[in-house]
């Protein structure tokens, strides 16, 4: 998707290892979000950011941390990955309260 890039696109990791997913935007949008998508659950908000160093928890934040040291980058970290964190992770950006744009996703498998 134009203006928003997620990396890596796919990752397989072992239980107990740390994992960091990156979201990079070129739109200079203020708001950034991390969602996870699981069958039967739709998309659920993990964490979000409303500016550099300003972050807050979403609906399913346990086991995840985030950081935003620059406007363009929003990092999601799984400190010690578990099998329940196997999911597809989406980053989204928003210029204001409306008009959210999603990235192409990162498929994470924890074995």
């Amino acid at each position: 998707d134009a203006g928003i890039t997620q990396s890596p696109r796919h990752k397989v990791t072992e239980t107990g290892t740390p994992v960091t997913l990156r979201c990079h935007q070129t739109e200079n949008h203020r708001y950034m979000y991390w969602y996870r998508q699981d069958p039967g659950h739709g998309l659920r908000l993990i964490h979000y950011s409303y500016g550099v160093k300003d972050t807050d928890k979403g609906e399913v934040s346990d086991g995840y941390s985030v950081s935003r040291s620059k406007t363009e980058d929003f990092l999601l970290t799984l400190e010690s990955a578990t099998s329940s964190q196997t999911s597809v992770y989406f980053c989204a950006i928003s210029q204001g309260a409306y008009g959210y744009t999603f990235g192409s996703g990162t498929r994470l498998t924890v074995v």
Partner: protein
Amino acid sequence: QQQVKQSPQSLIVQKGGISIINCAYENTAFDYFPWYQQFPGKGPALLIAIRPDVSEKKEGRFTISFNKSAKQFSLHIMDSQPGDSATYFCAASNGGGADGLTFGKGTHLIIQP
């Protein structure tokens, strides 16, 4: 507590027919109601959105109907085409907070040729 309930989970419609997906919400502070379309392996893409000051919004073959008193909104796809086969998500947000979208669980739509 699920704040946005979406139905049906799956839907099969014949080509040329009307596809209808329904959502209901609980939080009266919600003031933005978008629909997203997602194809396999892709991120959700905004299809159409509505604010509660209008009861209907139409863009091409896609229409949102909004009933504020019933706290319900629906997506109608007219003249459904095989290329419309995808997963559709309704969502809602409190625009004043910018604290993200709350999604329904999705509807897997199949348009049969």
